[in-house]
């Protein structure tokens, strides 16, 4: 065996493997991206659930056969327990709890200790939470009492547990089984149904391309719409059959194993509702997965696109397990979460017409959008024939040709890399629990090193035109005015949005408190440098520079929206999602139509500066707002504790529109949004060989 040959082959294999996008995705981006996303999402889900559970108030009925005054006081200490007196041993409703006080003699007969029976219903989350609160209160009380009461026995001193506690769960076995199943089955059903669409969707699109049959069918007299709808129907049917078989097998197994309980669980009505709502879910995922796989050249490539979508569905599907979440009007609109929670509700035997309608309607709308996207993509030659190569990595720079802007794939790649780098950099440099000033400096460092630097390096590597990629263009003074108008108009809307959002996704108190304390204690100037100036430069260069340029093939509206959403997602925390996306959309609008990133930076800087100033000079600014006539309630909504009055919102919107119109009127004529097709091809060398091979 010649070592030399082994070495030669090894290096060739490594080079070839590293040039394969799929390997890179699976090997590097997959793990480093998936874990932060999953862990962040899970931890936020759990803390959101906790926050929701914390809010539950339970009515506790006291049934005092014997009076133990201290105990009643101990219970009342918990603000989430509403204590009322009763002489009923059973709770009034499903949510209720009865705490029955009695007494019993100790074994030696010398002492009388309280005997307490807590009657509750384990299957009801309110009742169950209430019970835990009652137990916690009683435990605390018991500890206090133990500290005081000592009982002398023969062998010296010994503590005696000062009360006897009994739990009485009213829920039957069948009810408990039902609750557990209603929590776990929806998740499985949703995920299995989605999985059912995966392979047929890939096979009928990317699979056809790989097998070379797509051209054959395109040459036959069938419209592209007809082809897509035909294919879609087959994927949908398979997806539905998968869902149906899962549901049937689930039911049959259940009936077989829990023969005694089967009547109480999964009545025909529930099954029917679940089945009907599987329809829009199947349409949504069949169309979505087809649309995504149409982009891919091969089956394996499509798998690499579809698998992350599936993994991301895992989180919303898990909502059925989180008992703190119950279906509400808003959650009815969130895809996958709505199905997961709706199935649970229905399986628990609760039918609410409003929820049925909302879940069905919203999912149908998403499904229609996804289907339309699939049809459009199939009509797009570039997608269908995979003409555009997303990006070339591990290619020596000297083999790359200079080009004005990055491709869409390169922009997304940069997004993923920066997200990962910034996430790990801020873990390393800027932990909120550290010193306030070190947090600020760490944040600054992370932004410069993990956002700006990689973007600049990547742009240099790809030989991009910096002026075009980063929109480094001059602006007019009137445009500055327009930017300030947009900021002024957006400000109150942003406050309102943040307030609305808070109701849906509670803030993570730990995070907010630490952040504000570091702003207070780290000094105002460092805070402005780290949290206003730095992001205004680094994040703008990244999002309104590189990423926006990479989207230049999209229509301006889609570009602005997508950029905003990416900007929102980049902010990691769900409670920042909507406000950040809103800001992202406004700034993208400015940069797309003014052609100047500096205006975007100005907006970003102003926004963050004002937010910091507000948190630093809270009282003064509130007083200022009250003084200029925003009413005595200004403090409430300025601190995000109430709605912004609607006349102010209307006025704000008007100002915002004024600014937008101004930017639009003065729009940059040669902006990338208008298309850079006018620019002539500088290289005559034909690339048709690539095109020939689909």
């Amino acid at each position, binding site marked *: 065996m010649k070592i030399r040959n082994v070495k030669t082959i090894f290096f060739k294999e490594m080079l070839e493997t590293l040039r394969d996008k799929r390997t890179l995705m699976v090997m590097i981006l997959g793990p480093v991206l998936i874990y932060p996303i999953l862990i962040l999402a899970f931890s936020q889900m759990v803390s959101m659930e906790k926050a929701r559970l914390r809010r539950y108030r339970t009515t506790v009925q006291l049934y005092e056969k014997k009076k133990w005054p201290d105990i009643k006081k101990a219970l009342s200490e918990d603000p989430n327990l509403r204590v009322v007196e009763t002489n009923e041993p059973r709770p009034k409703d499903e949510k209720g709890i009865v705490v029955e006080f009695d007494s019993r003699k100790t074994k030696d007969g010398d002492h009388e200790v309280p005997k307490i029976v807590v009657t509750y219903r384990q299957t009801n989350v309110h009742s169950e939470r209430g019970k835990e609160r009652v137990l916690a209160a009683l435990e605390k009380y018991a500890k206090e009492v133990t500290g005081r009461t000592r009982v002398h026995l023969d062998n010296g001193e010994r503590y005696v547990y000062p009360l006897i506690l009994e739990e009485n769960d009213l829920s039957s076995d069948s009810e408990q089984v039902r609750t557990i199943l209603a929590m776990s089955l929806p998740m499985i059903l949703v995920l299995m149904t989605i999985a059912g669409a995966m392979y047929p969707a890939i096979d009928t699109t990317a699979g056809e391309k790989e*097998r*070379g*049959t797509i*051209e*054959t069918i*395109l*040459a*036959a*007299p*069938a*419209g592209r719409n007809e082809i897509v709808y035909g294919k879609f129907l087959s994927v949908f049917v398979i997806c539905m059959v998968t869902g149906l078989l899962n549901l049937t097998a689930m039911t049959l197994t259940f009936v077989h194993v829990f023969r005694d309980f089967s009547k109480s669980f999964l009545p025909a009505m529930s099954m029917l509702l679940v089945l009907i709502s599987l329809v829009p879910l199947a349409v949504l995922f069949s169309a979505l997965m087809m649309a995504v796989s149409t982009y891919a050249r091969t089956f394996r490539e499509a798998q690499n696109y579809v698998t992350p979508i599936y993994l991301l569905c895992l989180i919303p599907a898990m909502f059925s397990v989180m008992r703190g979440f119950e279906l509400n009007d808003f959650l009815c609109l969130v895809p996958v979460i709505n199905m997961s929670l709706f199935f649970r509700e229905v399986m628990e035997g609760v039918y609410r017409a409003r929820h049925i309608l909302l879940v069905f309607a919203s999912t149908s709308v998403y499904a229609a959008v996804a289907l339309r996207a699939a049809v459009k993509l199939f009509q797009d*030659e*570039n997608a269908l*024939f995979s*003409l*555009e*190569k997303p990006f070339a990595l591990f290619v020596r720079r000297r083999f*790359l*040709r200079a*080009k004005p802007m990055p*491709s869409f794939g390169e922009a997304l790649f940069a997004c993923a890399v920066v997200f990962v780098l910034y996430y790990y950099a801020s873990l390393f440099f800027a932990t909120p629990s550290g010193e306030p000033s070190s947090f600020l400096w760490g944040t600054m460092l992370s932004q410069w090193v993990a956002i700006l630097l990689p973007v600049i390096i990547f742009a240099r590597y790809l030989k991009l035109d910096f002026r075009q990629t980063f929109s480094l263009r001059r602006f007019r003074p009137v445009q500055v005015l327009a930017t300030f108008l947009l900021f002024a108009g957006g400000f109150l809307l942003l406050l309102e949005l943040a307030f609305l959002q808070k109701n849906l996704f509670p803030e993570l108190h730990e995070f907010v408190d630490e952040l504000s304390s570091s702003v207070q204690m780290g000094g105002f100037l460092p805070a402005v440098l780290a949290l206003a100036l730095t992001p205004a430069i680094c994040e703008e260069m990244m999002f309104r520079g590189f990423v926006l340029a990479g989207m230049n*093939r999209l229509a301006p509206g889609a570009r602005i929206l997508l950029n905003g959403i990416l900007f929102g997602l980049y902010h990691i925390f769900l409670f920042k999602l909507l406000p950040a996306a809103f800001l992202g959309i406004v700034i993208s609008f400015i940069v797309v139509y003014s052609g100047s990133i500096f205006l975007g930076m100005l907006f970003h800087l102003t926004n963050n500066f004002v937010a910091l100033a507000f948190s630093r000079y809270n009282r003064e600014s509130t007083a200022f707002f009250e003084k200029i006539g925003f009413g005595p309630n200004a403090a409430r909504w300025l601190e995000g504790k109430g709605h912004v009055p609607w006349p102010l919102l209307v006025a704000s919107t008007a100002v915002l529109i004024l600014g937008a119109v101004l930017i639009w009127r003065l729009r940059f004529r040669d902006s990338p949004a208008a298309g*850079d*097709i006018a*620019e*002539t*091809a*500088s*290289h*005559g*060398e*034909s*690339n*048709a*060989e690539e*095109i*020939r*091979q*689909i």
Partner: protein
Amino acid sequence: MTCILPVGHRLNWSLVAVRMDCETTENSDSRVVVEVSSLRKFFPDPKRQEIRAVDGVSFTCYEGEIFGILGPNGAGKTTLLRMLATILSPTSGSAQVCGFDVMTQPDEVKKRIGFLSGSTKLYSRLTPTETVRYFARLYGMEKSLIEERTHEIFDVLGMSYFEDRQWGKLSTGEKQKVSIARTLIHDPSVLILDEPTAGLDVVSGQAIIDFIRNARELNKTIILSTHYMTEAEEMCDRIGLLSAGKLVAMGTTEELLAASGASSLTDAFLHYVGGNGN
């Protein structure tokens, strides 16, 4: 419907009589079947803004003619033929097949052409019968006609013994026959063949050549792309030389030789295409 069964050279090739004659408009030359004028196709390219795959190509094909498009790899042959087959839409210019425009009446065009290329593969999990029926239905043919023609074509091509085996399990030659059957099922008046013999062995390649010759005998118009000189020289009535998206010369073999002063088609080809072929 009458059936003509001419005896082929090596295989019993035959084609069914032309049923669907070209519906050309009265005032135009009745023999013109395909008319291409200033056809262009530019592809967007993120790195270089655009690729000019086909750049202003014009030519005319007449009934019963074999028109060869000769060009090196990457000259734009496939893109040109794909536009004629309505698979790609032109950036500018126009193309008409049997008087129908590829842009505005693609379905009418599709009904009149049979398109065969190296990348028109078939479904590996379907049998030849299922495959041919599938396409016949898309062409809007009646059930009885489908049966009849399938039977005929399978008979003529000698496909009956493997008609119920899945396509994926067939040999290369058998696969090629199914593709031919698929191309002919709707009896097209124009055949667009993109490098039909590429990658085939001598026997299968010859089968294709026989098929093309017989098609001409039935007065079909054939547009053929190839980079085999002998194939072009032997079969084509007229040849167009395509280089970097442009038609650099056009005429019969003799005309091309005379114009370039070369002694063989290969030399003529090199004369026109030269070193800038790629």
